[in-house]
Structures are given as structure tokens and as C-alpha cells.
């Protein structure tokens, strides 16, 4: 399709990255439009009135919202190496673990990071580690969750790549995803972040820091308000 592709996003956000990584992996040419989340554009509000969030993909006049919905759309609408496997059971497993990675790893980890020290935080850290252990097991000696190639689940789990910087920002001394406990995940993180297509849209440490700068209070409040 030769219609223009635009991605409205916030560079530094792991949600935006999922969408961008999908576009890069499929070799789709796109224009990145940086959204000021404190002052959302008319374009964003018009095309994502329900959630008013980034990332938002505009393909011609077709608007697609929600990061994983965007990833599947990009996989289906454009040619290029498939992000999801072809076998139905494997596809179901990829979707299941993607949901797990997003809801039980990234989300829990986020809450753990921004919850002040104490019993609640210790519980969240323990929960995060339990869930990371399941992801560790999923890798099962493979380079990527998708096998030899980066796939749907790798993109969904990409938020884990942010962890070192975020832990630095949050003042965490011992990483939740340490190399001793999670050797496969740490190796995967290295592989993912050095992948050519992914690298091109992965924010640098400074960019991530800039994205989260000045947000700490808001993040703490947000973590507190998040439901289980």
C-alpha cells in the first residue's frame, strides 16, 4: 500500500516503541509525530477519542490505537517478515504471553518501581520476579521469544529493555532482573536492543531519562491508583 503512514507517539514511552518496532521490523516507511502528552494534538484527540493516548497509527485515513493492536495490524496490513508465527497454537501462545508480558511484567514492574519502600513494594517486587521467571522459562535457550527472529512477543516484552535506566532513575540498588537470576532474559535484552531494526527506534538512555524527568511524582501517584 502506498498510502502515507504516520505514527503519533511519545519517544521514550515503551508503548510507542512497540508500535515503532513493528513498523521498522516490517520495513514500513513512516513519519513519526512526537506528541506533547501535556498538550495533546487535535489530530490525536480526533482519531483516538476513546482513550486519547499514544501510540496511534494513521495509515491513510485509517486510525489504529492500542500498541498491541497496532503491532498485529502492521503485521497483517504490510508485507515483510511475519511477526506472529503461522501455527494457530503458536499464535495463541504468543498472544497469551504478550498479554502476560504487558499486564504481569511491565505493569507490575512499573508499580514496583514507583511504589515507596515498604511491604507493598516488597510484594510487588516479589510478584515481578515470579512473573519474570516465567518469561525466562519461555526463552528456553532461544535467541528471541520468536526464535531466531524478533517476533510479536519480543516486541510486546520490549518494555523490559527500559528497566536498567528506570531502576537508575527510581534509585533502585539491586535490579529486579539481575543477571544471576535471569541470565536468559538479560542476554535477550542485549540481543533485542542491538537488533538493527529495533536499534533505529530505541531511545537512548538520555532520551529515556528525559522522558521520565519531572514525572516522578506523577508516576508515584499513578502507581498508587493502579488497580491490581
Amino acid at each position, binding site marked *: 500500500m502506498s498510502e502515507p503512514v504516520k505514527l503519533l507517539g511519545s519517544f521514550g514511552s515503551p508503548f510507542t516503541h512497540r508500535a515503532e518496532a513493528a513498523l521498522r521490523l516490517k520495513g514500513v516507511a513512516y513519519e513519526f509525530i512526537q506528541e506533547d502528552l501535556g498538550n495533546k494534538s487535535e489530530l490525536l484527540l480526533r482519531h483516538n477519542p476513546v482513550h486519547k493516548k499514544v501510540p496511534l497509527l494513521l495509515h491513510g485515513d*485509517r486510525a489504529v490505537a*492500542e500498541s498491541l493492536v497496532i503491532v498485529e495490524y502492521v503485521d497483517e496490513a504490510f508485507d515483510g517478515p511475519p511477526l506472529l508465527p503461522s501455527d494457530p497454537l503458536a499464535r495463541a501462545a504468543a498472544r497469551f504471553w504478550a498479554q502476560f508480558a504487558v499486564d504481569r511484567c511491565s505493569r507490575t514492574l512499573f508499580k514496583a518501581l514507583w511504589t515507596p519502600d515498604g511491604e507493598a513494594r516488597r510484594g510487588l517486587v516479589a510478584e515481578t520476579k515470579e512473573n519474570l521467571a516465567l518469561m525466562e522459562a519461555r526463552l528456553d535457550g532461544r535467541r528471541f521469544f520468536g526464535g531466531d527472529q524478533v517476533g510479536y512477543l519480543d516486541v510486546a516484552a520490549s518494555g523490559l529493555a527500559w528497566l536498567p535506566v528506570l531502576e537508575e532513575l527510581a534509585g533502585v540498588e539491586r535490579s529486579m532482573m539481575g543477571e544471576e537470576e535471569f541470565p536468559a532474559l538479560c542476554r535477550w535484552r542485549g540481543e533485542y536492543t542491538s537488533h538493527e531494526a529495533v536499534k533505529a527506534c530505541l531511545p537512548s538512555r538520555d532520551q529515556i531519562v528525559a522522558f521520565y524527568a519531572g514525572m516522578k511524582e506523577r508516576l508515584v501517584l499513578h502507581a498508587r491508583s493502579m488497580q491490581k
Partner: protein
Amino acid sequence: MLSCSPTSTHHPHSTSSQHSHPQTQTDRHPSNAPTMASEKSSSDLTLLDFWVSPFGQRVRIALAEKSLPYEYVEEDLLAGKSERLLQSNPVHKKIPVLLHGGKPVNESLIIVQYLDEAFPDTPSLLPSDPYARAQARFWADYVDKKVYDCGSRLWKLKGEPQAQARAEMLEILKTLETELGDKEFFGGEHGFGFVDAAFAPFTPWFMSYEKYGEFKVAEVAPKIAAWAERVGKRESVAKSLYSPDKVYDFIGVLKKMYGIE
């Protein structure tokens, strides 16, 4: 409101061999087993489910839409979780679980998509166009994220938090109303589709939401109310859902369990 009462049909093969373990109150919630023959299904499908679960019902609806025979297994969740359930879904320990040739598929919307993909010669719930599919996934995700959770807060909470849940529920219904518009089904040109299957199981819960929230769906979202009636008459839906009264009673049971007045 809906008058589906599938409890009036007692399937002949609701025998104990069909269930994973003996039930205590089989007559109160008989298994809503499929229409197909009682021997082990030729498509080698088994569904671990719980009678009133809207999530399980999505799968029942999909299986019925596709005329796929399967073995229905009622998990008596109020009594505890069976070994088979725990083994099939060790991560979440939840129903529904679809076993296909013994291999588990978990999460209701993932199961429905799986059925589309594993049985491509059956009527599909997702459309074929990528953009239409993206829309369907978006709205099914919206229903998934919002409806059950907000509804639960409506009947669990009191005072200000309940008022908040009520406001949210009205917002959700109005948003879905806008999306449905004048379409017969959420699936639009495709007909009864993914989003319809995702949302239909919540229609018997409307009565309870109305009672606890003190509003009328027909007033707040008339098109949704009309859709609920239409969809309730569809065979796959009618035979998968329980009546609003049964749902209301079930909520009463849950409230007692949680010690809520």
C-alpha cells in the same frame, strides 16, 4: 430485557462423566452443553468453563457459531479448582480453558481468535480486512478492560466509589452506543462478529447493573439495549447465556461469600 432461559433445556448428557469432578448443586446450574453428540467430540475440543462466566460464554458462542462439537466441563469454581484446570492454566488458574487435542489455549478472546485460525473452514468471527480486524480487536479489548471490572465495582461498593462506578458504567455504555451506531451488529458488514461475541455475555448482567446503579440501559444507551435484545435471540447466544435473574442471584451468592451487605 432478555428472556433467555437456557436452563430450561437439560441436556441428556449432563452426566457426571462429563464433569471433571462431582458437583454439589448440579440442578441449580446445569451445564450448558453443546447440541452435538455426547461421545468425545470429533473435533477433539474440550472446554473447561463455569456456567455463568461471561468469558467462558464468549467461547461457547464462538463454538456454536462455528457448529463445532466439544465436550463441556463445568468447573465448580465456588468449591475449588480442579487439578486439570490448574495444570491447563498454571499461570492464571482461570477458566475458560480450551483443550484442543489436549493442548490448552487460555484467555477468552485469544481462544476465540484461535478457533477462527484453527478452523478456517468455519464462519469466522473476525473479518478478513486488516483494518476491520484492528477495529474489532480494539473494541473487544475495550469491552474486556472496562465492562466486568466496572460492573463488579457497581455491586461490590457503596457510597462515593459506587457512584463513581455508576458514572463510569454510563460512560462505557454511551461509548459502545456510539461505536454501534445504527449497525445491526458491532461486526457491521461482516455481520455478528468478534465484538458481538465479546460483549453479548454481559447483556444478562445489564439487569443487575441497572438495579445496583439505578439506571436503565434503554434510557442511557437505547441502541445497545436494542442490540442486546437482537443478539439475545441469536441461537448461539441464547443457548450460551443464563437469564438475568440467575445472574442477579449469582451476584447475591458472591456478595455473601465476600461478606458484602
